[in-house]
């Protein structure tokens, strides 16, 4: 088992390599990068991840709390609200999701506020794989992307074959983005190479679709783990790192988002490859969303302040953003009945 893992891992390198999406056989080009040898074995991967600088929890919490005191008013607030709306991955991930529910959400994604057409569309909708086709039809001709969760979301407790098939189906149905979950059990057991190979395989199965790697930080618990999982996901080829499924509490806390932003910043410095960040779960108010933008601005920098590099995984936050936007434009709050519930 260990033998096999080492051999498989040795084929991977990271950086600008391309994965050919041919079933479960992963072909990797031999482009060298500064960290090419990191994933040669579980031992090298472990040595690398545990060699990253530690995170002091008290200090990280304090930094996130301080950034939470930034006061974003007037013109800055107006532009932040529009930016936040354009970054939303409008999400429904319920057992009770139906085609009707998805169609309604897609309509809102394209035109969040029917009474004000200056409101930007959201970045994407996020649904389960079996509803991707429904979303695809509903979003036809719009610039809104379709993200699909995959890989036995939310627990990730299945075989690699099932996860790859899950991903392939979502891509075939038209998903532009795949939100996969990592195997937290393997991560916590120290089997980093397994997590790495799974991400690499899903990346291959995703083909052209962008891969967001959900770390489920609420289950990794320590900030050191969040940093290591972030690097692991980036090394394995993830295009985005995402905090949470939304099914586990705590989800996208400011300090966890801060640590992931530090990771993408440092990864770009180390490898030249830029990776996006998506906090998801627990972002409910405009204040929460703006705090996230402040974290981006003062951590990774304004290079990440675009829907290409930063997303907000949420559903209820959109109406609050719309309400605050209207308050800024008109000076008054309309009641909640003036904003559509989809």
């Amino acid at each position, binding site marked *: 088992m260990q033998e096999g893992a080492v051999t498989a891992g040795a084929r991977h390198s990271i950086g600008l390599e391309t994965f050919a999406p041919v079933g479960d056989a992963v072909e990797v080009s031999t482009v060298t990068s500064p960290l090419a040898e990191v994933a040669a074995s579980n031992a090298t991967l472990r040595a690398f991840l545990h060699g990253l*600088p*530690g*995170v*002091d929890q*008290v*200090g*990280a919490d*304090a*930094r996130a709390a301080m950034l939470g*005191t*930034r*006061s*974003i*008013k*007037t*013109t*800055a*607030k107006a*532009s*932040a609200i529009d*930016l936040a709306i354009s970054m939303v991955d409008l999400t429904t991930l319920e057992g009770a999701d139906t085609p009707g529910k998805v169609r309604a959400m897609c309509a809102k994604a394209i035109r969040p506020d029917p009474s004000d057409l200056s409101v930007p569309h959201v970045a994407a909708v996020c649904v389960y794989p079996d509803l991707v086709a429904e979303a695809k039809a509903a979003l036809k001709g719009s610039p809104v992307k379709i993200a699909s969760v995959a890989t036995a979301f939310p627990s990730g407790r299945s075989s690699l074959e099932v996860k790859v098939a899950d991903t392939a189906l979502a891509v075939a149905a038209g998903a532009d983005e795949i939100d996969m979950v990592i195997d937290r059990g393997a991560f916590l057991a120290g089997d980093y190479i397994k997590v790495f190979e799974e991400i690499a395989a899903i990346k291959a199965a995703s083909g052209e679709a962008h891969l967001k790697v959900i770390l489920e930080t609420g289950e990794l618990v320590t900030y050191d783990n969040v940093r290591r999982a972030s690097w692991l996901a980036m090394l394995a080829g993830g295009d985005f790192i995402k905090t949470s499924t939304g099914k586990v509490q705590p989800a996208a806390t400011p300090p966890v988002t801060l640590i992931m932003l*530090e990771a993408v910043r440092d990864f770009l410095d180390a490898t030249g490859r830029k990776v996006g960040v998506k906090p998801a779960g627990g972002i409910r108010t405009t204040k929460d969303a703006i705090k996230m*933008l*402040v974290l*981006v*601005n*003062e951590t990774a920098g*304004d290079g990440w*302040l675009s829907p290409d590099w930063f997303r907000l995984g949420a559903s209820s936050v959109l109406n609050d953003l719309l309400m605050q936007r209207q308050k800024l434009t008109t000076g008054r709050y309309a009641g909640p009945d003036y904003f559509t519930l989809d």
Partner: protein
Amino acid sequence: MFEYAPAPESRDIVDIKPSYGLFIDGRFVDGSGTPFKTINPATEETLAEISVASPEDVDRAVKAARKAFEGWSALPGSERAKYLFRIARIIQERSRELAVLESLDNGKPIRESRDVDLPLVAAHFFYYAGWADKLEYAGLGSKPLGVAGQVIPWNFPLLMLSWKIAPALACGNTVVLKPAETTPLTALLFAEICQQAELPPGVVNIITGAGETGAAVVGHPDVNKVAFTGSTEVGKIIARTVAGTSKKVTLELGGKAANIVFEDAALDQAVEGIVNGIFFNQGHVCCAGSRLLVQESIYDDLLGALKRRLALLRLGDPLDKNTDIGAINSAEQLAKIRELSNIGAEEGAERWSPPCDLPDRGFFFPPTIFTGVAQSHRIAREEIFGPVLSVLTFRTPAEAVEKANNTPYGLSAGVWTEKASRMLWMANRLRAGVVWSNTFNRFDPASPFGGYKESGYGREGGLAGLEAYLDV
């Protein structure tokens, strides 16, 4: 680019009078010296005219304190506690007003006066209110000293007032306090709070003026206890003045603290700690981490991260809620910072500041770091008391200790390592009153604060802080 729009705190919340008298025996009275003006260092506008206490005024204040001492010290501790709790609550209720006034008079960012100074001020009164009826349990007896003469600095005007007044009153002493001449306003508003709390007249007396007034307080024969926070230079003068008298003295003086970063430190948080260590309150902090000692093996990484972080600091209007670095407190201090910085460059250290637009009015100095600093450079020896960091390197823990202790000061130190055994090893060897472990500039009323060597003597805060105000 995400530009934050101006977010100024309203200054209308605080009502500044055109002129202030001295607070003696529960009333505001005119001083007999020539009044002076206190200005807003961010704009150089005059805020108010301040009375100057002559030696005669000081004598009246000490007499009022002496008269009040009899009744105040005879009160049961639980009764004194009630007054202190009441003061603490009023401070909390009026904290926004006090924070704005502090930022106006001192130049510190409103974020700091609001989130650091004011919560700590209230916490100190609450903490020592709790001791007032429990002095017997502290093991130091419960006999107060009498009249305390207290002289405080301009860097944390109201916080230093609370460090002085709260333990003094809790122990049954009465006080004559002189705030710094550039920052008298929050102390004078505190005098109004004493009236509001119906504190018996004479228990707290606030007199204003410059060095001569302070000297008159310290030298007054009927003062039993002298407490001073300020420069080592003035501290030495005070020590000479009180030598041979029965006065009890505590001095909290200058510092040149080492902030020591090991190669296994949590790098991002260490960078935050370095920034907080030296750029908090424009570096006007006696315990500021003004000497950064970096393990040579991580020097490049750490310096790169630190410079990137410094470029994010927001310097400007102290009342803007997003300002990180406010105004230097006075033209005189600004000149001193400039002078020492120029000396640093002349001595061969490399000077660096991030791109930073300084406002065209007021006293401002950009965050500055000096690299290539040697122990022999003046910027590594002398307290600059401004936003200027000297960076040195070390190779081994023993060398870090040696360099950290190689200073006439010994107020504080910081150590950054993820290895607990090394942390304890370092803490046992650093000759500094406070050693911060993976943090810097954290304060708590329960934690004693004070210096080794020329950083002073005596402790303020915590149980140890009671000793300074009891006849032990």
